[in-house]
């Protein structure tokens, strides 16, 4: 098969390319240029920097596969960065990496496979996909600590039939061993933890720079509505946040709720953070059929799934869960199998 491997320069996608080549496929490696930075400069931190593209190029040269850099700057800005800014301004806590998967990697890029004369897209995600009796299944990667099926929970049959995840069949330590055996420089490269366009994790600073007008001052109140202080923009806060609140009351205080209309940030105790259920939107079912009923729900990228029950677009937890921010994603599981996922629009506190 002719396959297109999305290479970030990291060890996972590098090994994914190597594995596909070993299997005898015709591999084409690509790096997506996603972000230019406000002054047109490529990023120097986080994922997808110029030095990452250089790492990917080197791996491609070592593997003797053609390698290209594709310009997705406009799609990324419109589909991911603008959403990011808009979500924060609306009091939500977005996950731009999931948005990037949803709009850029597994939509725009996937739709161009034919243009590149390729049959499937290959990524370095730690997940597994299987075809069983004509239906595509998405499973957690074998290395549970590194499983990334959560960020792929929006994929349906269309995407899964055209994608492969070779690396999810291996433990992470084996991935690094393969990379080291191949003499890949990225074998010991630390994993990228940052959002690729917010290099140093300072998303607040990023917003101050690209969208300063989303900062509107407002009150900090307790759960009874009493004013405790003020803030200079809801975008600096996320549900569950404990630090940087600007108030000290003796016992720990957490952001419990954000109201964008009134620019109010509500602070409460740990108990006030407990959520009994979620209102969802963009509910996706992996098999395209879906349903209701009991399932396991995972609402953090690396967190254990918990028992829950889904009816329509409402998910009720069996036990109340702490600190869930609207804007995040919840993925549904049946054991290791991904059933689907959805966006959290609000939480029933």
């Amino acid at each position: 098969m002719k396959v297109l491997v999305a290479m970030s320069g990291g060890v996972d996608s590098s090994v994914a390319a190597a594995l596909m080549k070993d299997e005898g496929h015709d591999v084409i490696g690509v790096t997506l240029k996603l972000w230019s930075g406000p002054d047109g400069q490529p990023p120097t931190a986080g994922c997808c920097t110029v030095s990452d593209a250089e790492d990917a190029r080197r791996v491609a040269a070592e593997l003797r596969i053609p390698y290209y850099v594709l310009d997705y700057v406009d799609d990324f800005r419109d589909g991911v960065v603008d959403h990011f800014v808009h979500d924060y301004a609306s009091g939500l806590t977005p996950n731009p990496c999931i948005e990037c998967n949803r709009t850029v990697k597994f939509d725009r890029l996937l739709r161009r496979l034919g243009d590149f004369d390729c049959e499937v897209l290959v990524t370095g995600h730690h997940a597994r996909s299987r075809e069983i009796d004509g239906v595509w299944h998405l499973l957690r990667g074998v290395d549970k600590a590194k499983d990334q099926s959560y960020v792929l929970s929006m994929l349906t049959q269309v995407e899964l039939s055209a994608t492969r995840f070779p690396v999810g069949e291996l433990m992470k330590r084996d991935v690094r061993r393969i990379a080291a055996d191949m003499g890949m420089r990225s074998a010991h490269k630390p994993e990228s933890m940052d959002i690729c366009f917010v290099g140093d994790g300072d998303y607040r600073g990023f917003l101050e720079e690209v969208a300063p007008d989303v900062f509107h001052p407002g009150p900090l109140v307790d759960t009874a509505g009493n004013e405790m202080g003020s803030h200079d923009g809801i975008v600096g806060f996320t549900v569950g946040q404990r630090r940087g609140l600007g108030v000290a009351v003796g016992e720990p205080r957490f952001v419990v709720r954000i109201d964008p209309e009134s620019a109010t940030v509500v602070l409460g105790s740990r108990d006030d953070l407990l959520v009994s259920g979620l209102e969802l939107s963009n509910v996706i079912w992996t098999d395209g059929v879906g349903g209701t009923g009991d399932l396991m729900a995972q609402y953090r990228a690396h967190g254990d799934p918990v028992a829950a029950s889904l009816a329509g677009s409402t998910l009720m937890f069996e036990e109340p869960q702490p600190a869930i921010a609207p804007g995040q994603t919840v993925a549904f599981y049946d054991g290791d199998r991904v059933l689907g996922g959805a966006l959290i629009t609000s939480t029933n506190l």
Partner: protein
Amino acid sequence: MIYLDHAATTPMRPEVWEAMAPYASSVFGNSSGVHDVSRQAKNALEEARERVAAMLGARPMEIIFTSGGTESDNLALKGAFWSPRDRSGVVAVATEHEAILETVDFLRRSGSPTVLVDVDDEGFVDSDAVVDATDPNTAVVSVMLVNNETGLIQDVGAVVEAVKRSDSDIYVHTDAVQGFASEDIDVGALNVDMMTITAHKLGGPKGTGLLYVRDGIMLEPVLHGGGQELGRRSGTHDVAGAVGLARAMELAVADRERFRSQIGRIRDDFEKRLGAGIDDVVLNTPRFGRSSHHLNVRIPGIRNETLLMRLDQRGVAASAGSACQSGAATVSHVLEAMGLTPTQARESLRFSFGWTSTMDESIEAADIIVELVEKLR
């Protein structure tokens, strides 16, 4: 590989490499020295200089050897800005090469009042518009002879005449990098004050070029140091490079007639085949006033990035505008200056022919392009 990217760089002519060989082995001296070893190098360097000057209709001391087109462009503008003369303005055309435009931008940030002159939708600049952009503070005007992206030939002679008539103290510089292979170039006939030429677009080595600077023009050097090139460009001479440049230029001059006729025919035939096979192909290269070896076209609905990848897979090498540091194709500022939208610029590709191009490979390439465009639609 069918190579249609000669505007980016060209294969070295074998005679050039042969001519350069002794300077990597036996004649290795530093041309600035007292002993015979260095004198041999110096003689070779000065002989190359004389040959180059003769070809341009210039005097040997008016030739400064540099590391290539970018350095020459930098020296022409920065040298004029920083010269002892009390003028600081810089004027350039919006479609100039980045080596000019980025230098202009740097000088703007350094305090120069800079002006970029617009072009019409074919890419031609009007001499009067250039004159209008100048004022008594203008130090230098730069207008390239043949555009590297579209192959358009600017009427540099007319621009020089108009500028000099308006203010004879303004230096006029032309980047002749893309033009030397096909156009007759005589600095006296053009009456330019400075001219950039580089070897690697002419079958010569990369890393060598020259700046012609008319006698009497004072430029502050960009590279300070040992004072080579009569103090104007310091740095140990790349004698091999200078010899290679001179040889490449001689061969290019001898080949000019063929470039204009035979290579021109190959390009024209290629153009016809694309037009016949792709109904809605649009020319970005003007129909008249163009070089014999460039062709820039727009194929509606097809991203140049995709087509270039597919062409690469089929063994055809072409390009689009310029690439950014990571390798992704950028939107051509030349096409944007001509009024194309970013989307249209992203549908445009450049094919360029050179001394190795043959009719057979050009026909094959045209067929492949037409086939791929059909597949992509």
